């Protein structure tokens, strides 16, 4: 790896702007990267981070301003040129070919040739050497389709290293990872820095920023708010820079006033896709006017539980009622009619049709409703009006108004659209599954506030989240799901992360579980308040 003097500026953007028509995606941005540092780039969705990185990677050309490397201005003609200059980029969505092996993917554009054939053995050896050196454990001969997302990411990083990158751009690298994988990634990034690599990391997650960054730059609405060293920063201070106002990381809410039970689940058994019991005899209630959080580590039956309530998955046994009406075994349509609003955990798969525009997505449930459809014909004016209203109320930002393709929206805006649609239906029960996954800080705050407002308006809210802090800060009551069973129940505000974490790993008696330490935090003071029989 070409070593520059540590601390010297190797990459610099000076007054760089990028304009699309009248719209400035970046305006007058100044940015510098020093050799051997981790420089985190933060900003809300749509703040212009990706535009900036695409200019660095040669995918976009700056409208104004200069990019310099090692003090000399450069014109980056395309990704190939960027690679030649030593810039490697790991995209949010990996650019790997599933049927090729890791090594084949890595050498794809840069093959060591032996005559006409690919010298795959030499390639594998080099990949192995690199992966050993940086602790990026991944089998070079495994097919990409067979390895985990975390390993795919490592393959992407190896690809950049293989091409002799000295600047590595990571675009939201932790968005797709499990907590363990995140920890592993942060360790690797540290190692790469120690080896002299200069790293730009784009992320929303302030905890990660504080744990890994040397310096932090914040973009807001296309402009650079500032660059600060990590020392002395807190989550709140960075968040403040990002949104330009103080963010309520703690949700401001009053004591809940629970009313009648709206959702009752009794002895529910549900199978997963592999035909194994995923939910095993779960029973709980959600009352009008309260938020019940379901806490649990991913894969403990949350998804199946939610699907079963929504009618999207058959129920083996048990009974579900919604505001007194038995909804066991009803179709999704019928459950929805009975008063369910559902923010699904996977908005790309379920929550919206990505190739529909916003207007059509807003009426996704309403294809047979009298206010949207007359004699089988869609009332476009009515649906457009509703879409306009909701986009306005929920600040859904899109390139082309309600005619925009939903898939073109940023994650936060997509989620706001889904939430707007579900709340607008005035449900009796609102299920919010991972409502803030992949969503920027500003939107998180907004979404949390909406959920609390719904609660205050008398809706029963079932919150399912993998983010413990989210469950803790929003829930009036918390049920803990572990291996498909409800193993604990807490009053909101009367439990801390440690005790909740213990319950989530199914350990009510203080035994630590190896490898799970990241979840539960410190493993002290186990005491489950109410454990239903």
């Amino acid at each position, binding site marked *: 790896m070409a070593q520059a003097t540590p601390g010297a500026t190797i990459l610099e953007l000076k007054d760089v702007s990028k304009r699309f028509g009248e719209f400035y995606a970046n305006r007058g941005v100044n940015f510098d990267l020093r050799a051997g540092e981790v420089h985190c780039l933060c900003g809300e969705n*749509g703040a212009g981070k990706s535009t900036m990185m695409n200019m660095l990677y040669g995918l976009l050309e700056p409208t104004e301003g200069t990019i310099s490397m090692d003090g000399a201005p450069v014109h980056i003609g395309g990704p190939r040129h960027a690679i030649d200059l030593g810039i490697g980029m790991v995209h949010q*969505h990996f650019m790997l070919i599933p049927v090729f092996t890791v090594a084949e993917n890595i050498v794809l554009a840069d093959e060591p040739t032996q005559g006409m054939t690919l010298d795959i053995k030499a390639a594998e050896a080099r990949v192995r050497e690199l992966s050993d050196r940086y602790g990026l454990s991944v089998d070079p001969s495994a097919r990409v389709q067979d390895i985990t997302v975390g390993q795919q990411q490592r393959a992407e990083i190896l690809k950049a290293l293989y091409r002799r990158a000295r600047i590595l751009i990571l675009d939201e690298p932790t968005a797709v990872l499990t907590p363990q994988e995140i920890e592993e990634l942060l360790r690797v990034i540290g190692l790469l820095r120690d080896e002299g690599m200069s790293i730009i990391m784009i992320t929303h997650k302030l905890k990660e920023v504080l744990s890994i960054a040397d310096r932090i730059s914040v973009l807001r609405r296309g402009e650079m708010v500032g660059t600060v060293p990590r020392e002395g920063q807190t989550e709140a201070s960075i968040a403040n820079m990002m949104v330009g106002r103080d963010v309520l990381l703690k949700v401001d809410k009053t004591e809940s006033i629970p009313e009648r039970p709206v959702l009752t689940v009794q002895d529910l058994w549900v199978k997963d896709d592999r035909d194994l019991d995923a939910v095993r005899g779960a029973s709980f209630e959600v009352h009008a006017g309260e938020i019940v959080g379901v806490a649990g580590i991913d894969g403990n039956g949350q998804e199946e539980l939610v699907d079963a309530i929504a009618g999207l998955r058959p129920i083996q046994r048990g009974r579900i009622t919604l505001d007194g009406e038995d909804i066991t075994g009803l179709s999704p349509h019928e459950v929805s009619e009975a008063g369910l609003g559902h923010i699904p955990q996977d908005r790309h798969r379920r929550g919206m049709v990505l190739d529909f525009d916003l207007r059509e997505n807003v009426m996704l449930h309403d294809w047979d409703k009298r206010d949207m459809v007359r004699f089988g014909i869609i009332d476009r004016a009515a649906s457009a009006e509703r879409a306009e209203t909701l986009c306005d109320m929920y600040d859904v930002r899109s390139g082309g108004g309600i005619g*925009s393709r939903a898939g073109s929206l940023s994650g936060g805006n997509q989620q706001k659209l889904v939430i707007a649609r579900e709340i607008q239906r005035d449900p009796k029960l609102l299920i919010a599954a991972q409502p803030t996954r992949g969503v920027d800080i500003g939107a998180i705050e907004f979404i949390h506030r909406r959920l609390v407002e719904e609660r205050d308006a008398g809706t029963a809210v079932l919150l399912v989240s993998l983010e413990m802090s989210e469950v803790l800060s929003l829930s009036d009551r918390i049920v803990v799901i572990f291996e498909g069973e409800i193993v604990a129940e807490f009053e909101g505000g009367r439990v801390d992360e440690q005790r909740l974490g213990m319950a989530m790993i199914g350990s009510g008696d203080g035994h630590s579980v190896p490898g799970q330490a990241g979840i539960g935090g410190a493993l002290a003071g186990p005491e489950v308040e109410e454990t239903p029989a």
Partner: protein
Amino acid sequence: MSSTRADAAQATTTRAPRWWRTSLYVALVAALAFGVVGCGKRGGTSGGDSGGDSGGDGGGKGPTVGLVTDLGGLNDRSFNALANKGLEKAESDLGAQGVVIESKSASDYEKNLGQFAQQKKDLTVGVGFLMADSINNVATKSTGTKFAIIDYSVKDDPFKSPANVRGLIFSEQEAGYLAGALAGMVEQEGTLKGLNGAKVVSAIGGQKIPPVEKYLAGYQAGVKKFCTGCKVLIDYSQDFIDQGKCQDRANAQMSKGSDIVFQVAGGCGLGALSAVKAKGVWGIGVDADQAYLGAHILTSAVKNVDVAVFDTIKAVGDGTFQGGSDGVYGLKEDGVGLGEIAPAAKQYETQVATVIADVKAGKVTIPTSPK
């Protein structure tokens, strides 16, 4: 259907670089173009001389003729190809000016015939009984131009003997008789490879319709005449298309001892001939010379459609064309006959020639429906 594009800033990251897509596309187009051209050149050397009349040769002073094929197209090795052969002969011998249009679907018949009628061709020829309705429709509207239909009588429905249409029909019984005669001689002598000595031959008809019945009747008579004690099995496939059905019938007949199978079932019959080949016995083709199928084809009972077409064009040129009636083409007119005789059976050629002479001389009475 209508939607604006993604806002550019977000969308760009997820799209592949344009050059990549473009260059692949260009490469594919180029590869295909070269591949196709390569094929084209080969086609040119083998098929370039068939018409030889690029760009409307004026030369001839003979009649203008339009030929409409049925769905089989010009490469059917049967009626369409033979009709075209007759037309080409008329072009070179009589200076006729011919145009051929191949039909791609049944609904093309009337369009294609109408095109010729509109151009006031001296003669428009339609191949096959499937075109009967269409020729009748067009001929009714175009009384000033002449038409001929191959293998169909203008006395049959839907025609009412229109004055401008001539049916070209064939004495199938004579061809059948020759084929039967050869089969009988072969059985009687019993020396050819593959014979079982049981003295059983057979035939498969497509349906009980006049042309088929005439073939079968002649075949039966021919076998009986030249083979004492020979048995002739006759079955109908009720199908002219499905090869499987004729294959089944042929296998059934062979299991009853048949070692010479005469197919009278068009495309379906090809299945019978392949069953025969698999068993190592003998088959007889129909309509066109099917010797190209292999050495197991003893001979074929053929209709010389080319002769009938040439003759009709000549009549138009001479002013002797007679509409409203059928031209019947028999052995005497060289309208029917035998195809090539299998190399192994060449020794019967002289005997067969005698039979042909007898039939031509009218010494033989051949029935037109099988017993």
